[in-house]
Protein backbone atom coordinates (compact mmCIF):
# COMPACT_ATOMS: atom_id res chain seq x y z
CA UNK A 1 0.00 0.00 0.00
CA UNK A 2 1.66 3.31 -1.05
CA UNK A 3 2.15 5.58 1.93
CA UNK A 4 4.19 8.41 3.35
CA UNK A 5 5.03 9.48 6.87
CA UNK A 6 5.82 13.06 7.86
CA UNK A 7 7.46 14.19 11.09
CA UNK A 8 6.64 17.74 12.18
CA UNK A 9 8.57 19.53 14.96
CA UNK A 10 5.35 20.43 16.76
CA UNK A 11 2.39 18.73 15.18
CA UNK A 12 -0.08 20.36 17.54
CA UNK A 13 0.94 23.95 16.77
CA UNK A 14 2.00 23.62 13.12
CA UNK A 15 -0.49 21.03 11.99
CA UNK A 16 -0.19 18.09 9.61
CA UNK A 17 1.67 19.81 6.79
CA UNK A 18 3.19 17.92 3.89
CA UNK A 19 5.26 19.02 0.91
CA UNK A 20 3.29 18.12 -2.18
CA UNK A 21 4.02 18.77 -5.82
CA UNK A 22 1.17 19.76 -8.11
CA UNK A 23 1.52 18.60 -11.70
CA UNK A 24 -0.63 18.53 -14.80
CA UNK A 25 -2.89 15.49 -15.03
CA UNK A 26 -1.92 12.43 -17.03
CA UNK A 27 -4.48 13.40 -19.69
CA UNK A 28 -2.98 16.87 -20.17
CA UNK A 29 0.56 15.50 -20.14
CA UNK A 30 -0.41 13.12 -22.96
CA UNK A 31 -1.86 16.02 -24.97
CA UNK A 32 1.25 18.14 -24.47
CA UNK A 33 3.69 15.35 -25.30
CA UNK A 34 1.77 14.25 -28.39
CA UNK A 35 1.74 17.81 -29.71
CA UNK A 36 5.42 18.39 -28.97
CA UNK A 37 4.78 20.99 -26.29
CA UNK A 38 6.83 21.13 -23.08
CA UNK A 39 5.30 19.68 -19.95
CA UNK A 40 5.40 22.27 -17.15
CA UNK A 41 7.44 21.34 -14.10
CA UNK A 42 5.40 20.50 -11.02
CA UNK A 43 4.78 23.29 -8.51
CA UNK A 44 5.85 22.50 -4.94
CA UNK A 45 3.78 23.66 -2.02
CA UNK A 46 3.23 23.10 1.66
CA UNK A 47 -0.25 21.68 2.11
CA UNK A 48 -2.17 20.92 5.26
CA UNK A 49 -4.11 17.71 5.71
CA UNK A 50 -7.49 19.24 6.57
CA UNK A 51 -10.33 16.98 7.66
CA UNK A 52 -12.49 20.09 7.86
CA UNK A 53 -12.21 20.64 4.10
CA UNK A 54 -14.55 18.65 1.91
CA UNK A 55 -12.34 19.23 -1.13
CA UNK A 56 -8.67 19.79 -1.94
CA UNK A 57 -7.50 23.36 -2.55
CA UNK A 58 -4.52 24.84 -4.34
CA UNK A 59 -3.32 28.40 -3.96
CA UNK A 60 -4.63 30.88 -6.52
CA UNK A 61 -2.22 31.18 -9.44
CA UNK A 62 -0.88 27.63 -9.38
CA UNK A 63 -3.13 26.44 -12.21
CA UNK A 64 -1.93 29.26 -14.45
CA UNK A 65 1.70 28.37 -13.71
CA UNK A 66 0.91 24.85 -14.95
CA UNK A 67 -0.93 26.13 -18.02
CA UNK A 68 -4.18 24.53 -16.89
CA UNK A 69 -7.72 25.57 -17.73
CA UNK A 70 -10.79 25.03 -15.54
CA UNK A 71 -12.84 21.86 -15.94
CA UNK A 72 -15.60 22.76 -13.53
CA UNK A 73 -17.14 25.25 -11.15
CA UNK A 74 -18.40 24.56 -7.63
CA UNK A 75 -19.93 26.60 -4.87
CA UNK A 76 -18.10 26.61 -1.55
CA UNK A 77 -18.94 27.69 1.97
CA UNK A 78 -16.44 28.96 4.52
CA UNK A 79 -16.88 30.38 8.03
CA UNK A 80 -17.22 33.86 6.51
CA UNK A 81 -19.00 33.27 3.21
CA UNK A 82 -21.56 31.04 1.50
CA UNK A 83 -22.05 30.00 -2.08
CA UNK A 84 -18.84 31.47 -3.50
CA UNK A 85 -18.12 30.00 -6.93
CA UNK A 86 -14.63 28.58 -7.47
CA UNK A 87 -13.01 27.07 -10.55
CA UNK A 88 -11.93 23.44 -10.51
CA UNK A 89 -8.83 21.95 -12.12
CA UNK A 90 -7.75 18.38 -12.80
CA UNK A 91 -4.27 17.87 -11.39
CA UNK A 92 -1.85 15.22 -10.24
CA UNK A 93 -0.75 15.28 -6.61
CA UNK A 94 2.75 13.99 -5.93
CA UNK A 95 3.32 13.30 -2.24
CA UNK A 96 6.54 12.25 -0.49
CA UNK A 97 7.77 8.74 -1.17
CA UNK A 98 6.52 9.27 -4.75
CA UNK A 99 2.92 8.58 -3.78
CA UNK A 100 0.88 9.88 -6.71
CA UNK A 101 -2.81 10.50 -7.18
CA UNK A 102 -5.11 12.49 -9.42
CA UNK A 103 -7.77 14.85 -8.13
CA UNK A 104 -10.11 17.62 -9.18
CA UNK A 105 -9.20 20.54 -6.93
CA UNK A 106 -10.44 24.06 -6.45
CA UNK A 107 -8.24 27.10 -6.70
CA UNK A 108 -8.68 29.77 -4.03
CA UNK A 109 -6.64 32.32 -2.11
CA UNK A 110 -5.27 30.89 1.13
CA UNK A 111 -5.18 33.33 3.98
CA UNK A 112 -2.31 31.76 5.91
CA UNK A 113 1.25 32.38 4.79
CA UNK A 114 2.64 29.02 5.86
CA UNK A 115 0.55 26.83 3.56
CA UNK A 116 -0.36 26.98 -0.10
CA UNK A 117 -2.80 24.13 -0.22
CA UNK A 118 -5.30 21.97 1.65
CA UNK A 119 -5.61 18.22 1.25
CA UNK A 120 -9.30 17.63 1.78
CA UNK A 121 -11.66 14.77 2.36
CA UNK A 122 -11.92 14.02 -1.37
CA UNK A 123 -8.34 12.72 -1.26
CA UNK A 124 -8.69 11.32 2.26
CA UNK A 125 -11.70 9.34 1.05
CA UNK A 126 -9.21 7.08 -0.75
CA UNK A 127 -6.79 6.79 2.15
CA UNK A 128 -6.02 5.90 5.74
CA UNK A 129 -4.82 8.81 7.88
CA UNK A 130 -2.91 7.95 11.03
CA UNK A 131 -2.25 10.96 13.28
CA UNK A 132 0.17 10.16 16.09
CA UNK A 133 0.19 13.30 18.20
CA UNK A 134 2.57 12.19 20.91
CA UNK A 135 5.32 11.37 18.36
CA UNK A 136 4.62 14.46 16.19
CA UNK A 137 4.08 12.51 13.01
CA UNK A 138 1.35 11.38 10.70
CA UNK A 139 1.03 8.79 7.97
CA UNK A 140 -1.23 8.69 4.95
CA UNK A 141 -1.70 5.40 3.12
CA UNK A 142 -3.59 4.87 -0.13
Amino acid at each position, binding site marked *: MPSFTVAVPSLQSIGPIVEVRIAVSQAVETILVSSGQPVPSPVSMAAMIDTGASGTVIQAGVAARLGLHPVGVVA*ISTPSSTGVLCAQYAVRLIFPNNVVGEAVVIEA*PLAGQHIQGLIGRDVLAQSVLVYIGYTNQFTVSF
Partner: protein
Amino acid sequence: MVETLKDELRTFESRRDELLGTSLGRWVLIHDGDLVGAFETQADAINIGYQRFGNVPFLVKQVVPVEVPQDYVSNHLGI
Protein backbone atom coordinates in the same frame (compact mmCIF):
# COMPACT_ATOMS: atom_id res chain seq x y z
CA MET B 1 -11.39 31.95 -13.78
CA VAL B 2 -15.04 31.14 -13.14
CA GLU B 3 -15.79 33.82 -15.73
CA THR B 4 -14.07 31.62 -18.33
CA LEU B 5 -16.91 29.12 -18.08
CA LYS B 6 -19.83 31.56 -18.02
CA ASP B 7 -21.26 30.33 -21.35
CA GLU B 8 -21.02 26.71 -20.20
CA LEU B 9 -22.67 27.56 -16.88
CA ARG B 10 -25.45 29.36 -18.73
CA THR B 11 -26.03 26.27 -20.87
CA PHE B 12 -26.08 24.06 -17.79
CA GLU B 13 -28.63 26.26 -16.03
CA SER B 14 -30.85 26.58 -19.08
CA ARG B 15 -30.97 22.80 -19.52
CA ARG B 16 -31.00 21.79 -15.87
CA ASP B 17 -34.67 20.74 -15.77
CA GLU B 18 -34.28 18.62 -18.89
CA LEU B 19 -31.10 17.04 -17.53
CA LEU B 20 -32.74 16.25 -14.21
CA GLY B 21 -35.19 14.13 -16.17
CA THR B 22 -32.67 12.39 -18.40
CA SER B 23 -29.34 12.35 -16.58
CA LEU B 24 -29.93 12.55 -12.84
CA GLY B 25 -26.71 11.83 -10.94
CA ARG B 26 -24.57 11.75 -14.08
CA TRP B 27 -21.78 14.16 -15.01
CA VAL B 28 -22.38 16.35 -18.04
CA LEU B 29 -19.67 17.74 -20.28
CA ILE B 30 -20.30 21.17 -21.80
CA HIS B 31 -17.92 22.94 -24.16
CA ASP B 32 -18.40 26.27 -25.95
CA GLY B 33 -21.98 26.33 -24.75
CA ASP B 34 -22.76 22.92 -26.28
CA LEU B 35 -23.85 19.91 -24.25
CA VAL B 36 -21.52 17.10 -25.33
CA GLY B 37 -22.93 14.26 -23.24
CA ALA B 38 -23.58 12.76 -19.83
CA PHE B 39 -21.17 10.31 -18.22
CA GLU B 40 -21.13 7.92 -15.29
CA THR B 41 -18.20 9.53 -13.46
CA GLN B 42 -16.52 12.91 -13.22
CA ALA B 43 -13.24 11.35 -14.37
CA ASP B 44 -14.90 9.88 -17.47
CA ALA B 45 -16.36 13.26 -18.45
CA ILE B 46 -13.05 15.07 -17.89
CA ASN B 47 -11.08 12.52 -19.89
CA ILE B 48 -13.54 12.74 -22.78
CA GLY B 49 -13.28 16.53 -22.61
CA TYR B 50 -9.50 16.42 -22.91
CA GLN B 51 -9.61 13.81 -25.68
CA ARG B 52 -12.12 15.76 -27.77
CA PHE B 53 -11.09 19.34 -27.14
CA GLY B 54 -7.54 19.29 -25.77
CA ASN B 55 -6.21 21.41 -22.94
CA VAL B 56 -8.92 24.08 -23.07
CA PRO B 57 -11.66 25.20 -20.69
CA PHE B 58 -14.76 23.03 -20.47
CA LEU B 59 -17.38 22.39 -17.82
CA VAL B 60 -18.00 19.08 -16.11
CA LYS B 61 -20.85 19.21 -13.64
CA GLN B 62 -23.01 16.67 -11.86
CA VAL B 63 -26.74 16.79 -12.45
CA VAL B 64 -28.36 17.02 -9.03
CA PRO B 65 -31.60 18.65 -7.86
CA VAL B 66 -29.83 20.74 -5.23
CA GLU B 67 -26.12 21.50 -5.33
CA VAL B 68 -24.53 21.22 -1.89
CA PRO B 69 -21.59 23.64 -1.53
CA GLN B 70 -18.19 22.24 -0.66
CA ASP B 71 -17.66 22.93 3.00
CA TYR B 72 -14.56 24.47 4.62
CA VAL B 73 -14.77 24.83 8.37
CA SER B 74 -11.34 26.35 8.97
CA ASN B 75 -10.47 29.94 8.16
CA HIS B 76 -7.56 29.09 5.85
CA LEU B 77 -9.37 30.24 2.74
CA GLY B 78 -9.28 33.97 2.12
CA ILE B 79 -12.86 33.99 0.88
